[in-house]
């Protein structure tokens, strides 16, 4: 019987077996309710503490509360891109089929989180800086990240051959994660050069623990939300691919 010697896959193991789509669907179906529970719970607790039961900033007063929505969104934007890069790496080296599905599923989620970070950052900027947009180092970096997500989505859609699209996108994600620190560094440097006077309110100043707790709860909530959305999209994508495979099999059977 033919052996699967095509890819340098480590023998058997959890990931190997997970690649079976039916198995993944079962596992994710089991996991889903728990994730939804964590998401709802943490959002509830986080929003309560963040928007109501936590102290106000000395200078910014209530507007600082946007931080509880904005900062985790930015963290998730970066976590999404890391997921994209890792799934791309796994897809290229081990050709694990789920990695490709994960990458396709993550990109739009990451783009939305990035947009959310930009949007809430702009809302935060209005009362703080007096303008909707400012070329702050962080906002600029996040804006660039947004376009990198768009680039990933665009390259996935640029090819009819799904396998080729997946490979190109995976490679792009890996290249992107390597260049991202360089971009961040150069934007930081550019920003300090051109705006020495402004001290960014978003910079990582030490936070009061009473503010840190809701922030972390919100971060967990966002991560759980990411998990829910990712699994949902992956399940959808897998089902779509199965339908396509069946259609192709029918086409192949009728031709011969």
């Amino acid at each position, binding site marked *: 019987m*033919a052996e*699967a010697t*095509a890819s340098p896959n480590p023998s058997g193991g959890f990931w190997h077996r997970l*690649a079976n789509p039916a198995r993944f669907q079962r596992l994710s179906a089991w996991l889903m309710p728990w994730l939804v529970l964590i998401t709802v719970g943490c959002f509830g607790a986080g929003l309560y503490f963040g928007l109501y039961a936590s102290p106000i900033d000395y200078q910014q007063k209530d507007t600082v509360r946007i931080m509880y929505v904005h900062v985790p969104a930015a963290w998730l934007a970066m976590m999404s891109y890391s997921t994209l890069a890792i799934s791309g790496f796994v897809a290229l080296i081990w050709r694990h089929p789920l990695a490709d599905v994960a990458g396709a599923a993550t990109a739009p989620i990451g783009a939305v989180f990035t947009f959310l970070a930009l949007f809430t950052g702009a809302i935060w900027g209005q009362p703080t800086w007096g303008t909707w947009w400012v070329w702050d180092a962080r906002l600029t970096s996040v804006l660039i990240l947004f376009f990198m997500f768009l680039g990933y989505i665009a390259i996935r859609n640029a090819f009819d051959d799904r396998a080729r699209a997946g490979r190109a996108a995976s490679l792009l994600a890996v290249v992107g994660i390597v260049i991202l620190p360089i971009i961040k560094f150069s934007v930081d440097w550019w920003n300090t050069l051109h705006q020495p006077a402004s001290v960014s309110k978003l910079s990582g100043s030490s936070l009061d623990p009473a503010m840190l707790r809701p922030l972390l709860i919100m971060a967990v909530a966002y991560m759980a939300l990411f998990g829910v959305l990712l699994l949902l999209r992956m399940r959808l994508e897998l089902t779509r691919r199965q339908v396509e495979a069946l259609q*192709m099999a029918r086409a*192949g*059977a009728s031709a011969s």
Partner: protein
Amino acid sequence: MRRRWPRNLAPDQMPILDVQYLACRRGGRILFAGLDFSLSKGEAALALGHNGAGKSSLLRVLAGLIPPFTGRILWNDEDTRQEPYDFRAALRYVGHADGLQTNLTVIQNLRYWAALYSAPTERLALTDALAAVGLDDLADLPARMLSAGQRRRLALARPIATPSTNAHTAGLWLLDEPTVALDRPSIARIESAIAEFRERGGIVIASTNAPLTLPGAQEIDVSATVLDLEDAFEDAYA
């Protein structure tokens, strides 16, 4: 999985190219599976099958352009995916596309490939190769002025102009539809070039629906072994 060859095989008869349980998957379909054959010095193989059966894909998998879905290809007992250098030094591939730069002349095109494969790049050596395919009087013509048949012949001049520098093996020619658009005299020229290569010990695998005489060639039928995709997937990830 190391194949055992009969002990009484003379060194000359030992297979140089050994293809084991090869399968290819393109665009979600399994084109062929379980392909298993071997070739020794001077032998040839003909890939047959209807259009779209996967003959071109077979040659591309053998060349190493496409990774096999399962199976391996051994050249001189080395896996070509793991140790590609020696294999590539011996391999000459002529695919569907002609691989010509239309702005360069015929001989300039050939000179690049000769340089790439460390073959002689002097005009005399190159015109010899062109003469073997009947293009020597067109050597200084821009390639864009060639007809389809002439372009095909220039593509076939490539393996002729780049003989292997390895003393042990004359090499492997993978020819995809070599005689498409060629007239009888040209086909005869190609056949004699192939025969001369085989005499030096070279191995030839050609895919064709057009007439091409390869005396003593093994026939490989690439009719679609249509495996159910689900089954193949289960096989690979059970």
